[in-house]
């Protein structure tokens, strides 16, 4: 078998299906787009034939509509309600079992060796989001073993963006619409589902070598590059990030927090949809005899009152302080903690907010400061 060279290659629709099948054959649990509940989600893909085609979506603040395209594109949509953290940092995870033994008890780790994952269709913003979570969960003095077990071996097939969605602003956050690294393979979908493939690792090259592919023609490569370049100008949202961190951190007492809290339902949709939010809680349970116990780790949200509870009462009692925590963590304090923003501009929190609250708009308003009464009247 010949190994694919590292220059750009090309793949057609059958080649893509063969790629999925090759991943399955290699023992990966392949996760990719699927249509469920009126949205594109990520789910298990058992074979290349299952990949949905011809879908698109319409996204705006508080709005998501699945639609049909007039072609058979595989990746004619941006991002949906699920993100890869569902698989790399699962929402509910059994961490250990403990059982009483005499006066003592035994603790047994529950998270064995999960099957290797292959992520198919990772958008550049989501690739950046995975890198954000890597830094949180693997980059500190301790590494989260559950995350490491899923993440370290994960095979990543990225898909470059040519048609950003209505709430996307990765170009502002510097995370897209093109990914330069962090993938094993990266696809750019061209007309008639001809893919230009960039090879990002030797195992990517090795896998590609197992499916029918050909060298990409120079004009195909140029067209793919031009399409991602053009995507820059088609973002549904923008956010000016220069000076934003400082402005937000200076605005702890901005009246805008109260105003947005008046609309916010504290439903936590934004934190659940957000691909970088990493917060979890634990739940300790026992059977009726109290002899067997389990520790579950579950996604949590800084929008809940309990999140900051200490004896005597929660630290963040008001919805405005919780919204402020969320937004300033994403766009300001994350910089202090990890040297980059915690937002990658995927737009999910905007689309999936039932109240249609737009983080870019709130950040702008808080950073701008209160509008003087006169100017406000003129607006």
């Amino acid at each position, binding site marked *: 078998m010949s190994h694919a060279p590292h220059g750009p290659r090309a793949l057609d629709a059958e080649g893509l299906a063969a790629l999925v099948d090759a991943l399955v054959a290699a023992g990966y649990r392949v996760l990719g787009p699927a249509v469920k509940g009126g949205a594109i989600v990520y789910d298990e893909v058992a074979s290349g034939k299952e990949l949905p085609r011809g879908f698109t979506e319409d996204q705006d603040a508080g709005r998501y509509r699945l639609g049909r395209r007039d072609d058979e594109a595989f990746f004619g949509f941006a991002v949906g309600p699920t993100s890869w953290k569902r698989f790399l940092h699962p929402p509910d995870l059994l961490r250990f079992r403990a059982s009483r033994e005499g006066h003592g008890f*035994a603790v047994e780790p529950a998270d064995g060796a999960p099957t290797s994952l292959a992520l198919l269709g990772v958008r550049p913003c989501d690739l950046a989001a995975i890198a954000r979570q890597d830094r949180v969960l693997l980059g500190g003095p301790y590494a989260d073993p559950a995350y490491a077990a899923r993440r370290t071996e994960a095979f990543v097939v990225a898909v470059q963006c040519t048609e950003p969605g209505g709430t996307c602003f990765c170009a502002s956050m510097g995370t897209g619409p093109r990914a330069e690294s962090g993938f094993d393979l990266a696809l750019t979908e061209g007309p008639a589902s001809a893919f230009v493939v960039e090879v990002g690792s030797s195992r990517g090259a090795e896998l590609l070598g197992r499916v029918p592919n050909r060298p990409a023609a120079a004009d195909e490569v140029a067209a793919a590059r031009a399409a991602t370049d053009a995507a820059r100008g088609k973002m549904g949202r923008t956010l000016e990030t220069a000076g934003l961190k400082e402005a937000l951190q200076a605005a702890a007492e901005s009246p805008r927090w109260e105003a947005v809290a008046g609309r916010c339902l504290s439903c936590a949709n934004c934190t659940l949809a957000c691909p970088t939010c990493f917060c979890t809680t634990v739940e300790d349970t026992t059977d009726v005899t109290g002899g067997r*116990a389990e*520790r579950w780790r579950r996604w949590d949200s800084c929008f809940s009152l309990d999140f900051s509870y200490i004896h005597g009462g929660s630290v963040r009692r008001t919805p405005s302080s919780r919204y402020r925590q969320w937004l300033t963590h994403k766009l300001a304090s994350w910089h202090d903690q990890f040297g980059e923003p915690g937002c990658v501009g995927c737009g999910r929190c905007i689309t999936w907010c039932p109240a249609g609250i737009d983080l870019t708009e709130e950040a702008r308003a808080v950073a701008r400061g209160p509008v003087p009464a006169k100017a406000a009247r003129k607006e």
Partner: protein
Amino acid sequence: MTLAAGANDPILPRPYRVHRVQKETSDTFTLELRPEAGQASFPFAAGQFNMLYVLGVGEVPISISGDPGLPQSLVHTTRSVGAVTKGMGRLQRGDAIGVRGPFGTPWPIEAAAGNDVVFVAGGIGLAPLRPALYQVMARREAYGRVVLLYGARTPEDILFRRQLKEWRADFDLEVHVTVDRATRDWRGNVGVVTHLIPRVPFDPYHTVAMVCGPEVMMRYTVMELERRGVQLEDVHVSLERNMKCGVGFCGHCQMGPKFVCKDGPVFPFEKVRDLLNVREV
């Protein structure tokens, strides 16, 4: 309790047994823990905490209150306030308990050498300070004046009474206790602990202060210390936030840009001053 694989997993409790239970006050108790036979104990620094797991009930952060010079017995002093701490209070000698740690930043014991040391404690806040007291007492000659200002709710709530008396007698520890509510035979101070600060002798320009108690108490304490001329970089506080992991994964302990579990709990005051001034941060 036996522990299977994954002993290096920072979220798996390690097996310990309750070796001794000491009732301190009506709602506060001290547990002395020993590792399960065959397991090694770990060194810790004054100011660090452990996550203590009561089977099936839950896990909470509790500071180590014992002597860092005697790490083979792990001592914690806990006030029963809710489900987990009450469950912990029901444990008896020989019972098992899970331990993860030690986590967090230490009190500046070495950096304080050559200076006067002022400890200010409120309520259960004396427990996280006790390891620092042990260390300063162990090298008493390396420090100048050593003062403990301690506020308790009532005379019955005073922790470590006998030990404080011994340190006062044998190690020249100056102890001033005040209570919120006096009982009939109490002849000491009544009122908040901050009122003691202007009255005690120490050299403000060569003083390191270590403060642990409720957040408001710490804010006022620092104001008083500053008024006396103590530099804010020489004032250290131990902060408390909800903690589910202790190692920077769960996000619960965040306070602005700080993770109290790994950047703290002990902070130089000037590093958190601005945050403490923000409401509900």
